[in-house]
Each structure stands twice: as C-alpha cells, then as structure tokens.
C-alpha cells in the first residue's frame, strides 16, 4: 500500500510540471502584447520597453519559465498587472472562497446524491426510484444560474430570509463560521450542489443496481446476513467508483463557476479567472490556473489512494 502511494506520487510530479509548463506557454503563445492592458494608449516606446524589462518579458522563453518556476516554488507568483498586488495573495483569497463554497455544496450535493442513488438502486423500478431519478434529471438539466436567480427571488427578495449576494459583512476577508457569515453561503452552495447531486444520484443508482445483481449479494443472503449487513457490503463495493465520481465533481467545483459566482457576487476563483482573462492579466491567469491544477492533481491523488485502500484489486494496477 505504501509503495502504491509512493508510485502515485511519482506519477503526479511530472503531471504538475507539465501543467506548469503548459499554462506558462499558453499565456506566452496567445497573440497580442501582454503589456497592452497596463499601458496607456499613447505610451511611448521607451515606457513599453521599460515595463517589458521590468516584467522580464524580454528574456528568452526557457529562461522566463525557469525563473518563473523558481519563484513559484518559493510561493511567489508575481504581481498582478492590473492591480499590482501579489498574485499569490489574490489567488489564495479567491481559492479559499471557492473551496469553502465547493465543500459546502459537496456536503449538500454528495449527501443527497448518495442517499437518493442508493435508495433508487435498491428500489429499482418502483415509484421511489422514479421519484429519485426525476430529481436527478431535474438537477442536471436545470440551468444553475437560472436556479440561482430563482432562489434569490424567493429567499432574498420575497421572504427576505437570506442575503442575495456577497460573502458576508466586511467581505470574505473576515470569514467566520457563524450564522452572520454562513447565511451568505447557503444560496450559492445550494445552487452549486444541484448538478453534482444529480450526477451522483444517477451514478450511484446504476452502481447499486449493478452490485445488487452480482452473485456475491445472493451468497451473502444465502449465508444468513441481515439486510443491514448486506448493505454494508454493497456500500463498500460501490465506494471506489462513487469516490471517483465525487472527486471529479469536487474538482469541477474547485475550478469555480463563473456563472454562479457572478450571480451571487461570490469572490471566488471563477470570478478571478474571468477578470484575469478579460484584463489580459497574465501573471494572475498563470497563477490561478496553476493553483487550481495543483488542487485538481492533489484531489485525484487522494481519490486514487482512497480507492486503493478500499479495493485491494486496485493496488496491483
């Protein structure tokens, strides 16, 4: 098992490096001068050259990559062209907000998805199954920015129970786990949770049905296991695949949804990425993509390890 973890880690390192190289290169291969965004329209050639040197854009690409990587390894992602603030701080702030939103949404969506999927799988073909399946289909097909707006209209505008936008009084910089802050999290989290809930319901339903039709389940009943004891076997068999689906969904959510973050003015990585792209803020773009990619790789690594812990057949692969 330990060897397996080491092996997975060894695989992850080149992936992270390639991602770093890729997002570095992508930015440099896009047409247009990255300085355009910060230069006044009538800037002189000298000023442009000065800034180019200051940002290091005049050096050969491999050197730029080496220097960039070296700084990144020391936690320095450069300064944002648009704001001049350190990218690391901006990204950390935004990613923290998105992580919070993603985990809250995961808590809701995964719990509901697992429960509905298991119930639907166990009672396949009955009205319970049809109900759960309808909920799942609705979950994946409702456009979530629309759902977000509907929720805002109901719970903020009409009922005035929950705030419509933002991440709490004083901004998300002073987040605390109390009702004054958590109430800001509820609507965006519910909105975000709907798609993963639907996807997990569908997957777990299929998975449960599949496992229940396997011979070993009949053999468990044949040796006198109780319903609840058989359920434990079903869950453990479903867990590796369910974990993979959940990991993927959590990964998507960690990327941040531009639509949801816009609807709720949630200062997360989706919004940050969006503004970095539109302002051609290269250091910010690089930094955000890199951090998100590393998150994604780390998440996958954790899912792989968890799967191998549960299912011994995976360890050999």
């Amino acid at each position, binding site marked *: 098992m330990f060897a397996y973890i080491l092996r997975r880690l060894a695989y992850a390192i080149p992936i992270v490096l390639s991602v770093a190289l890729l997002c570095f290169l992508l930015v440099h291969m896009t047409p247009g001068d990255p300085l355009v965004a910060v230069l006044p329209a009538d800037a002189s050639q000298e000023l442009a050259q000065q800034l180019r040197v200051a940002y290091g854009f005049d050096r050969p690409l491999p050197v730029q990559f080496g220097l960039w990587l070296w700084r990144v390894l020391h936690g320095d992602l450069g300064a944002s062209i648009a704001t001049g603030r350190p990218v690391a701080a901006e990204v950390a702030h935004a990613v923290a907000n998105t992580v919070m939103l993603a985990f809250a949404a995961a808590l809701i969506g995964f719990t509901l998805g697992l429960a509905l999927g298991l119930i639907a799988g166990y009672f396949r073909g009955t009205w319970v199954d049809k109900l759960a399946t309808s909920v799942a289909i609705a979950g994946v097909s409702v456009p979530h920015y629309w759902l977000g707006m509907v929720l805002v209209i109901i719970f903020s505008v009409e009922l005035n129970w929950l705030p419509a936008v933002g991440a709490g009084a004083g901004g998300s910089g002073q987040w605390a786990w109390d009702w004054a802050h958590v109430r800001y999290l509820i609507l965006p989290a519910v909105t975000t949770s709907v798609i993963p809930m639907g996807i997990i319901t569908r997957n777990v339903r299929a998975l449960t049905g599949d496992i229940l039709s396997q011979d070993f389940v009949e053999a468990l009943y*044949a*040796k*006198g296991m109780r319903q609840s004891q058989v359920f434990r076997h079903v869950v453990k068999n479903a867990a590796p695949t369910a974990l993979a689906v959940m990991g993927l969904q959590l990964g998507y959510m960690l990327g941040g949804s531009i639509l949801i973050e816009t609807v709720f003015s949630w200062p997360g990585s989706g919004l940050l990425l969006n503004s970095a792209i539109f302002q051609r803020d290269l250091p910010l773009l690089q930094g955000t993509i890199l951090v998100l990619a590393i998150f994604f790789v780390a998440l996958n690594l954790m899912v792989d390890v968890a799967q191998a812990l549960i299912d011994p*057949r995976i360890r050999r692969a």
Partner: protein
Amino acid sequence: MSALVEISDLHVRFVGERTVHAINGVDLTLNAGETLGLLGESGSGKSVTLRALLRLLPKRRTVISGSIRVLDQDVLALDGEALSRFRGRTVSMIFQEPALALDPVYSIGSQIAETVMRHEGCSRAAADQRALEMLNVVRIPSAKSRLAAYPHELSGGMRQRAMIALALSCKPKILLADEPTTALDATVQIQILLLLRELQREFGMSVIFVTHDIGVAVEISDRLAVMYGGQIVEQGALRDIIRAPSHPYTRGLLGSNAHAAPKGQRLETIPGAPPVLDAVPRACPFAARCAVVEQRCNLQPPPVVEIADGRLTRCFLAAGQDASAMN
C-alpha cells in the same frame, strides 16, 4: 432413515416480461447423511429448486406453491430473522463460480468470520479462530496467511475451498452445492469432489449436489434425482438407476454403459431442444425428444409411478396398463 428435507408438489413460476414455469411439481426428499445428486441439463430447474429451498428467489417476480419442509420447519412460511437464521446455519450453499460468490473487497478470513459472528454471536477473535480452523479443514495450505488474502489472490480451486470453508463454518445440517466443480479444471474438480465427500462424512451432513455432468453425479451421489423441464422424472438409489434406468430420458443420458461415462460429458447428447416453459405442461415435456413416445404422451402428463421401493419414475411406459399411479 428420516427425511431432513421434504419437498412436495413444488411449483415455481417467474412472472414479469415473460412468464417462465421453471418448476412444475417437484417432489424430492433428502435423507440424513446422504448425498443426493440432482442431475439435469441446463435450464431444467436445478438452481431454481435450490434457491427455493433457501428462499433466495426474487420475491416480487416469483410465485411459489407447494411445500418445503426442512427439519420439520415450514420453509415457505419463514420470514425475517427466522429466515436469515435458517440460512447459513441449518442449510448453506456453495456456488458454481466462487470468484463471483465471494465479495471481492473483503478478505477470505473476514467473510468467514462475519458468518460465524452472525450465527454464533461470538467475538471477532473467536470468529477469526474458527475461520483459521475452517481453512485448515478444507486443506488450504499456509492457512494463516490466507486468512488475509482477497478472493482475487487465490486460484479457482483455492477459492472454492474457501467457499466451502465459509459454507461449513457454522456446521450446517444440509449443504446445497450448485455445480461447484463446473468452473474448475478436471484435476481440481476431482480434488474438490473428494474433499466434499470427506467433509460430508466428517460433518455428518446431508448434501444436495447439483450437476449436469453424469460422471460427477456418479462419483458423488448416493441417490440420484433426474430433472427435466422443471420436474423430477426419475428418482432412486444411484446403483439401481445406473443398473436399470427406467425413464426414457435417463436411459438416453446413461446409454448402455454408464460406468464408462467420461467425466465432463455434457447431457446435450440427446437430439432435440429442452422444452419451452411458458405454460404448465399439459403433456409429457419429454415427448418431443422421446424415442418411445406414444400417442397418449402428447395428450396428458404422465403419472409418477413407484416401480420399486424408493424408485419413482414419471412415464406412461413405467405405469404399464394398471400399475398403481401416484400423482
């Protein structure tokens, strides 16, 4: 000899997209300490009979009638806790594909231990101890280290031994074996048969051994029941049946010299296809393939005839003109 299992007039029908009359009036007894071979070609209803005995058939899609008594318990009336206590403790089962019948994500040891804990309410340590004993009983080498092995880490033969260890871990009175050697290589097959023979004596169990392989049936059975189209067409002591098969189907199966029947020989040697089971048979189900078919065979179902003590045959020819017919 007292009967441990008494199945009488068992009917099983599957409903759903299409109706299958899988079992059509089975009468079967299993006596203490004997091995009953249940022989029949694929689809004749052997597995369904065993599953009915353990009440494993899907409730919503199955209609069962008749009676099944095991040790004076009415099996068809069992429910809930009583039913799951009955399974694995009074009657347990081994399957054709041990690779599929064992849970892939639990170790062999824990799968045996959980069975023991379920039925004997003992501690995990005591259950583990029993699991180790059982692996020794079925002669799995280096049993101690195999406790932690997962099913996929064992060979087919070792997996079937582990399955047998699991099935016998709570000392059941009756073992149901559903083609437990069919998926194995010929040499491993013989080892498992010998092992089952030995364990049957050692544990004083009664066994119902299902097979479609004449050679295996001859090897393992004390008594033989031949199944066709969801009915028992002939039943009796193995030796008597082999010496003088009375039902045309059995005769076809055995040919003239059953002792020379090679192992692994399939039963599909009689020309023709197995009967369609979409309705209750209103004639002899074997009529279409029978070499000595008569007109009446197609008009009504043949009676069950006791041609000698403990020898039953379901055929008009055995009934003769005025022999006493049981039905």
